[in-house]
């Protein structure tokens, strides 16, 4: 049975056009782009073509793109580069709701003598901008704020933040892994200095990412060795995947409107119908400033893993902010930072759609999920209690 895949913020299907573009570069054109011979050189030309396509999607120059192995590598590279090239500055600002790729690195740096400020969010997941600006100082080396949150889809005003931060003389980096391909990005018109992205979130394969570094930004490589990527990222290029990422960027530009119209409409339908059919359910995060494909819905008094496994019986794929799926016992740090109560945080499910989802699939989830929640609530001691209280109030 074909899965009903609504977990596109976790990873996406590689687009068939991308696969097709990549295939010749495994066994036919397998040369090393660094080689002197034509056989390798033609591969180098193709890598440069991919760079141009990705740059075009971002409104950047090709020389501002460094290919990496993943979003995490891009994030690490950006943050270390800012710290290494500003050794006299010992302060980092980031947010409480970053992806672990940034959050855990920031916490580590905090244990190594750096001062780290984690900017809080409000109940809707909006960033406390005043808090951020109040903590900017001459000692601030880098401010790293995600473009859009992976769990709730809430979008942060990174362009506004970038302007303030760079005016202040600090480096501004954004983890845009969830945003690229879903919201329009034009780096020619803002002050973002570094931007991370990941291939497999936009229908390219896993194992390839990129870091945008604005021309003139001080930089120090994370991986040292060969001269690849103009000495900014050593290591033989993941050629086929880079070519795939180039193609995916081209497709993303072409599909941006569909993402924001058809996919958004599907997401809105899914959300509206689920909320209408399931009592004690609510959306996590600012419903206005959100990625078009993402909805995080809290179902009170039930636990996320149980919901996921029952959905799994129908081959519906989503994810949860619940503790039980992650190996840690605390519910998602994002939902907790937003102050989502435990009653709701444990039972939050994220649906993230893509252009490959159909209305039939959305309808199926709308049909299957309400009985699942009802079934689990019948099992839950808190649901009966809650109903009792509710009827008292009447």
């Amino acid at each position, binding site marked *: 049975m074909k899965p009903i895949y609504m977990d596109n913020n976790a990873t996406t299907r590689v687009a068939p056009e991308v696969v097709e573009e990549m295939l010749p570069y495994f066994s036919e054109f397998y040369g090393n782009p660094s080689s002197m011979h034509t056989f390798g050189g033609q591969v180098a030309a193709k890598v440069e073509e991919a760079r141009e396509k990705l740059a075009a999607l971002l409104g950047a120059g090709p020389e501002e793109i460094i290919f990496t192995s993943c979003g995490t590598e891009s994030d690490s590279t950006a943050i270390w580069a800012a710290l290494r090239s500003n*050794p006299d500055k010992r302060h980092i600002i980031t947010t409480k709701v970053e992806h672990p790729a940034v959050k855990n690195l920031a916490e580590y740096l905090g244990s190594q*003598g750096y001062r780290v400020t984690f900017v809080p969010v409000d109940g809707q997941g909006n960033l406390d901008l005043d808090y951020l600006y109040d903590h900017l100082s001459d000692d601030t080396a880098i401010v790293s704020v995600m473009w859009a949150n992976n769990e709730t889809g809430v979008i942060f005003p990174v362009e506004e933040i970038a302007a303030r931060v760079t005016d202040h003389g600090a480096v501004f980096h954004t983890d845009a892994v969830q945003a690229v391909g879903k919201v329009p990005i034009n780096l020619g018109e803002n002050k973002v200095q570094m931007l991370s992205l990941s291939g497999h979130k936009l229908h390219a394969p896993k194992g390839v990412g990129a870091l945008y570094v604005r021309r003139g930004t001080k930089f120090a490589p994370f991986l040292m060795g060969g001269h690849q990527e103009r000495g900014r990222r050593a290591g033989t290029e993941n050629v086929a995947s880079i070519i795939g990422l180039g193609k995916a960027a081209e497709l993303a530009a072409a599909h941006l409107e569909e993402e924001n119209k058809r996919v958004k409409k599907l997401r809105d339908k899914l959300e509206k119908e689920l909320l209408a059919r399931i009592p004690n359910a609510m959306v996590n995060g600012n419903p206005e400033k959100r990625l078009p494909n993402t909805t995080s819905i809290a179902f009170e008094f039930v*636990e996320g893993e*149980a919901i996921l*496994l029952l959905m799994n019986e129908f081959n519906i794929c989503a994810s949860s902010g619940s503790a039980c799926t992650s190996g840690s*016992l605390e519910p998602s740090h994002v939902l907790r930072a937003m102050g989502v109560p435990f009653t709701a945080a444990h039972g939050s499910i994220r649906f993230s759609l893509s252009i490959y989802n159909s209305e039939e699939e959305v309808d199926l989830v709308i049909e299957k999920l309400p009985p699942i929640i009802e079934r689990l609530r019948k*099992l839950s001691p808190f*649901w009966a209690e809650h109903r009792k209280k509710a009827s008292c109030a009447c």
Partner: protein
Amino acid sequence: MWEYTDKVKEHFLNPRNVGEIEDADGVGEVGSLACGDALKLTFKVDENERIVDAKFKTFGCASAIASSSALTEMIIGKTVDEAAKITNEQIAEYLGGLPKEKMHCSVMGRDALEKAIAHYRGQPEKKIEGEIVCECFGVTDVQIRRAVNENKLASIEEVTNYIKAGGGCGNCHEKIQAIIDAELGRPAEKKPKPKRLTNIEKIRLVQETLEREIRPQLLQDGGNIELVDVDGDTVLVKLQGSCASCQMSQVTLKDYVEAKLKELVTDSLVVEEVR
């Protein structure tokens, strides 16, 4: 994806004995919404103290629901005394095993059963025994000790898997480790006793510690360290490589090099940098 046995899946998808017995003889409630799982167990006995019916309501993940379901099957037909002997291990075994991260689900079953039996016997609600160690999940030292002994737990991670303690903020990890050490009969601290070292011993130990513990760490970050002299309790060192130019070198020197030497050589040492 958790690896559940077919039996866990089966009990999760088709839980037995769901509900609440209205005029129950024994009622046991454990857990809370904040913890992420909770169980209410009710049972009824006949005139021979044999459990004739048991029902449960559970908020939690698949294995919490399966453990509760299994528990009701296990106790129906047993006398209260027999049921009282059921351990969390037996609940897990009944299900063909649980992933180690999910053992706390079987512990929750055992705890609910214990409470329900105490309620049936008219024993006063047990006061929380001991002191809360894990604030996040409200786990006491008595509970941790019991879990460590019953399940032969040897690490904080295992304790978290079984009774959740330490799975939240992590502030209690030291205390949990101390309990594990005490229960397993390990020396409370590995620190060498602060016996008086001769000068030769001290210098040798400083050298050894630098070589074995400190230098490899600094080398990882592209730095290095050289021992210049030991003058009484003052250790004079030279920082090299990336450490020499690093703004954080003073932090490294005091918080890492000095702390390590204090820990492994003697508490009175002071480290100073020779430039």
